[in-house]
């Protein structure tokens, strides 16, 4: 149920710039508090951890609860240390990790 990670970075950046990194992934973020038509509890199924690395260094991490909306959108800031590649990882309640990479063009 985790699919289609989307990353938005500036087209180019200079060393020392502070950039915004926007991320989005398709996920139901089922809270575990809802019931189906037959009154049965729908088990919790959320992305509980998001990690962003830039060139093997962790630059951001988020621990999420069911209070985050479906298709979790997260953005954060980073000072550009130089050219490199972002690596993003979303982990759900089943322990399944979905990853995405995005190169940052540094002028």
């Amino acid at each position: 149920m985790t699919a289609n990670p989307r990353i938005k970075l500036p087209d180019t950046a200079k060393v020392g710039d502070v950039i915004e990194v926007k991320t989005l992934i398709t996920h139901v973020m089922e809270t575990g508090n809802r019931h189906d038509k037959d009154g049965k509890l729908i088990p919790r199924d959320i992305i509980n951890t998001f990690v962003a690395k830039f060139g093997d260094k962790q630059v951001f991490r988020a621990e999420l609860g069911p209070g985050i909306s479906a298709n979790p959108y997260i953005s954060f800031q980073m000072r550009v240390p130089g050219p490199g590649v972002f690596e993003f990882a979303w982990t759900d309640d089943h322990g399944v990790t979905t990853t995405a990479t995005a190169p940052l063009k540094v002028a």
Partner: protein
Amino acid sequence: MRELSKISIVNRRSFLVSAAAVAGLTPLLVHAATTSSLTLDRSPKFEEDFAKLVGGATPVEGKITVDLPEIAENGNFVPITISVDSPMTDADYVRAIHLLSTANPVAHVATFRLSPLNAVARVQSRMRLAKTQDVVTLAELSSGQMLIATTLVKVTIGGCAS
């Protein structure tokens, strides 16, 4: 008939009283929207999670800016931006931002972990709000100090069992 007219008098009077109260309180309410509202109930789960996150620290108000709509039409999808006024240097930075709901079934909404690499302590996400409530944001600094901001959001349609 007498009963009815009595009721209407009481209603009119209480209306006038409450109208006067609202007029008098308006500046206070505006203030509450940006800082805190002391009138809303907070869930035991919130108190529990809040105490756990705060630990031994005494949270201080200020330096956190939380952008949330004053009125959220859809509680399933409430955009939030949190900024902390911090130099984000090795000596002084925001280690974590904790986001808490005072009225959702699960109080701890998220924790965002930062470091000096971020340079600017600003995160954005979208949250669920089950009903009208205070949203509490905590910022954990590298010094061990804890900052707090409380933001009232009025919710029109609650986020389902968030």
